[in-house]
C-alpha cells in the first residue's frame, strides 16, 4: 500500500505538468474561439439576453415606483429560477456541451483532436473548461445586466436596495447559482453526449427528472443539479400551476453544503467522463 502510494507520488511528480498546462490552455482557447465567437453561437446569446432585452423595454417604457421593488425582486427571482435554470441555462448548456464531443463526431472532425499529442483526459477537461467559460461568461453577464436593469429604474430607492439592503447579497447568490448551474449541467451534458448518439432524449429525461425531483426521496434529490441550486436561491418564488412543482420546498440544506454537494456531483461526472473518453473510438459511419 505504502509502496504503491510512493509510486503514484513519484509518477505525479514526474508528470509533465508544464506541458499539460500549456496544452490545456491552448486547447481551451481554440475551443472558445471556435464555439463562442461564431455566428452559430448566436442562439445562445439570444437565450441569455432575451430577458435582458425585455427588462430594458421595461426600464424605458414602464414607470417604476418604490412600492414595486419587492414585486420586481420576485420577478427577477422567477426569471432566474424558472427561466434561466429550467430553460435558458439548461438548453444553452445542452447546445454548448453536446457540441464539444458529439458535435465534432457529427461533423467528423473529432479525429483531429484525438490525433493531437494531448492526453484524452486533458482534452475532455479543456473542452469542459471552454464550454464552462463560454456558458458562464454569457449567462453570468446576462444575470448581471438583468440585475442592474431591474433596480436602476428605481433610482435612489434601487441603489439603496442594492448597497444598503439585501441587493448585493442576492446578486452574489444569483451569480453563484448560474456558475454552478453551468458547471453542473455542462458536466452532465458532456457525459450524455459521449454516452448517446443523440443525447437530446436523454437530456429531456434529465429535464423531467429535475422537474419531479422535489417530490422524490431526499437520497434521490442528491442526484439533481436543480435541487442543490434551489437551496441557494435568495428569494423564494411563489409559482402557480405546473411551475409550483418546480419550486416545492424541501428540507433546508445550508448553502455551503449544497455547493459542495453539487461540486462533488460535477467531480464524479467528470471523472466518469474521463474514463469514457479513454475508450472513445472513431466510427463515423455509425454516427
Amino acid at each position: 500500500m505504502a509502496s504503491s502510494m510512493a509510486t503514484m507520488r513519484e509518477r505525479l511528480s514526474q508528470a509533465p505538468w508544464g506541458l499539460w498546462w500549456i496544452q490545456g490552455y491552448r486547447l481551451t482557447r481554440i475551443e472558445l474561439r471556435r464555439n463562442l465567437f461564431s455566428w452559430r453561437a448566436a442562439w445562445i446569446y439570444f437565450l441569455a439576453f432575451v430577458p435582458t432585452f425585455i427588462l430594458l423595454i421595461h426600464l424605458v417604457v414602464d414607470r417604476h415606483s418604490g412600492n414595486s421593488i419587492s414585486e420586481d425582486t420576485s420577478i427577477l427571482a422567477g426569471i432566474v429560477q424558472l427561466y434561466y435554470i429550467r430553460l435558458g441555462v439548461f438548453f444553452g448548456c445542452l447546445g454548448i456541451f453536446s457540441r464539444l464531443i458529439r458535435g465534432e463526431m457529427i461533423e467528423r472532425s473529432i479525429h483531429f483532436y484525438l490525433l493531437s499529442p494531448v492526453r484524452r483526459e486533458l482534452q475532455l477537461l479543456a473542452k469542459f473548461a471552454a464550454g464552462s467559460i463560454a456558458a458562464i461568461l454569457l449567462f453570468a453577464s446576462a444575470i448581471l445586466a438583468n440585475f442592474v436593469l431591474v433596480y436602476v429604474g428605481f433610482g435612489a430607492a434601487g441603489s439603496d436596495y442594492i448597497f444598503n439592503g439585501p441587493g448585493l447579497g442576492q446578486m452574489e447568490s444569483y451569480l453563484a447559482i448560474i456558475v454552478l448551474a453551468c458547471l453542473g449541467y455542462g458536466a452532465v451534458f458532456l457525459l450524455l453526449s459521449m454516452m448517446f448518439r443523440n443525447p437530446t432524449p436523454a437530456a429531456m429525461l434529465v429535464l423531467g427528472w429535475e422537474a419531479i425531483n422535489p417530490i422524490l426521496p431526499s437520497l434521490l434529490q442528491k442526484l439533481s443539479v436543480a435541487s442543490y441550486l434551489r437551496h441557494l436561491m435568495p428569494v423564494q418564488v411563489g409559482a402557480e400551476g405546473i411551475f409550483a412543482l418546480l419550486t416545492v420546498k424541501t428540507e433546508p440544506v445550508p448553502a455551503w453544503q449544497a455547493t459542495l454537494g453539487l461540486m462533488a456531483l460535477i467531480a464524479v461526472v467528470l471523472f466518469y467522463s474521463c474514463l469514457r473518453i479513454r475508450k472513445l473510438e472513431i466510427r463515423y459511419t455509425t454516427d
Partner: protein
Amino acid sequence: MSDQIIFEDVSKFYGEVLGVNRITLSIPPGITTLVGPNGSGKTTLMNLMTGLIQPSRGRLSVLGLTPADATEFFSAVGYCAQFDSFPRNITGWQFVYDSLMLYGMEKAMAADFTVEALDRVQLGEAAGRRIAGYSKGMRQKIRLAQSIAHHPRVLVLDEPLNGLDPMARAESMALFEDLGRQGMHVIISSHILDEVDRISDRVILITGGYLIAEGDIHQVRQEVHEKPMQVLIRCDRPEVLASRMFSVNHCVEARLHADGKGVFLRTSELDQFYSMLNGIAAEGLIKIDSVAPADDDANAIYQYLIGTEGSAS
C-alpha cells in the same frame, strides 16, 4: 527504442463485423503500400496504428510507443485520414497552426512550421482562405500539410492521392519519396497502384480483414509460385526468341509486344530462364536490348493474390 511498427496478433471487431483478424506484422522504415479491395480493412489497420480505434485483441506499438502515451506517440505519428471534414469556420493556416500549438511549441516556431508545411504542399497562397471554400484537391493537401507539419517519424496516409490532379499527384509522390528516403516510415494506402508502386519499398496485401502477403514487392512476387513470372525482353527478333524459349518446359506463355519489338515471356523457373537467356545472347543470333520483369509490381501482385473480385482502393 524500436524503429518498427509492430502488430502482434491484432484483431478488431465492430460488434459482429470483422475489421481485421490476427494481423502480425513488423513494418520497418521506408515506404510501405497497403493494398486491398474496398472494405478489406486497410483503414481499420491505419486507425489501429494511430490509436483512433483500439484492438479487440492483440497488441501493437509504433516505434515502441502506444497511443496511451499521447504526448510522445502523436509527436512521432502523423495521420492524413481520408475523412473529408474539418473543424468549422477555420482557414487552412489556422488548421495547421492550431494543431502545432498543441505540441507545446513556441508561437514563432509553430508559425514557421506552418509556413514550411503549407509550402511543401504548395498551398501557401490559399492558406488564408477558409477550408470550407477549398476544392477537393486543396482539402486533401491541407490534410497532408497538417499531418507532416510537426515533422513526425511515422506518416500514415489513407488514400492521399484522392482528388488530386496529375500535377499535384506527381508533387505528392515526390514528397512521399523524399520523406521515405530520409528514413521516415511512410505507410500509404492508395488505389492508384501504378504510381505508388514506383516509390514503394514494401507492400502489405490485405483482404477481408486478413493479411495475405507482406514484404518487399519483388520477394512477394517470387513467392507467388502458382503465377509464373512474366518478363519483357526487348529485342530485334522476338518471334525467334519466343520459339527458342518454348523449347524448354518452364516457359509457359509467350506474347509479342504490340510494337513487334519485344516479347512477354512467362516462366515458372526464373533462374533457369535467365541462364538460358544469357546463352542465347552469347550466341549473337538475337540482339537483346533490355530485359525487365513485367509483373512484379503491386498491381500484378494485387491481381494474382486478390483477384478481380474487387478493385483496389
